[in-house]
């Protein structure tokens, strides 16, 4: 379900979840576009040499994935602010899920506050955040 107008949103609404592509090929594509071609993002063995468990999805990519979820939910919305906390690494080649829930509405501003998470298959929250979204 997509949202066209502020009036379509209700407190507690869940955004449609999706599983982002956090496979190595796609992370390399992101890293190239973001000019972040570091081994800790693009190569498991290189990341291990840096003392990591494996390659990690860049935090900037996790944040942009959360923004993409908002756009899928409300295609004409404008993002006023997105604030993310990188609580734990999002590992490349592991499956992740992005989720959002509406936690506040401001009728005067026509904005919605959305709580955001990136979780892994174990149900662990790796990234969390909030967004303020302005709706038509």
């Amino acid at each position: 379900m997509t949202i066209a107008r502020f009036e379509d949103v209700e407190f507690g609404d869940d955004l449609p979840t999706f599983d982002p592509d956090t496979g190595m090929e796609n992370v390399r594509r992101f890293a190239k576009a973001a000019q972040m071609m570091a081994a800790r993002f693009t190569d498991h063995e290189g990341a291990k040499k840096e003392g990591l468990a494996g390659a990690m999805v860049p935090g900037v990519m996790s944040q942009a994935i959360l923004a993409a979820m908002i756009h899928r939910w409300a295609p004409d919305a404008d993002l006023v602010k997105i604030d993310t906390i990188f609580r734990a690494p999002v590992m490349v080649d592991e499956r992740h899920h992005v989720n959002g829930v509406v936690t506040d509405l401001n009728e005067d501003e026509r904005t919605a506050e959305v709580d955001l998470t990136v979780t892994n298959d174990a149900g662990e929250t790796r990234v969390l955040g909030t967004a303020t979204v302005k709706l038509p």
Partner: protein
Amino acid sequence: MEVEDLKEKFLKLNFDEAEFHVDGDDMVGFALACGETAARYTDPADPDFHATPTFPARFHGRRMLPRDIPLGGKIPLDAGKAVMPQKKIRPGTKLVGRSHLHDIYEKTGRSGRMIFLVSRMELFDEAEDLACIVDSRMVVRERPGE
């Protein structure tokens, strides 16, 4: 390392300036890799084609913190990032990013004190219009007794 001293000496003072060129191919690659589907982010032929709102978070200045900030030899860890878009960013735009410390605060828990440093980059376009604000939160941890 007292927070009030750090605030007095470092807050609100620009410590870095850097230029960035916004490339259309990078905008598309960034958007598609993150799962964007809207043509305004993914199709350069779209009349409203512009960068995704968080695209400016990829820009990094030459320094994340003032050169002489005393952190006791500790390396700050990435604690989060906030993006506040102000204007649509089109391909070919040249941006200037100016950075300052926007906030410094501390939290104390059972594992000791944590000092948070919020480095704010303000990105301006060729018209000197503010295009985006990016806050990078960094944390320095102290152990009890340090």
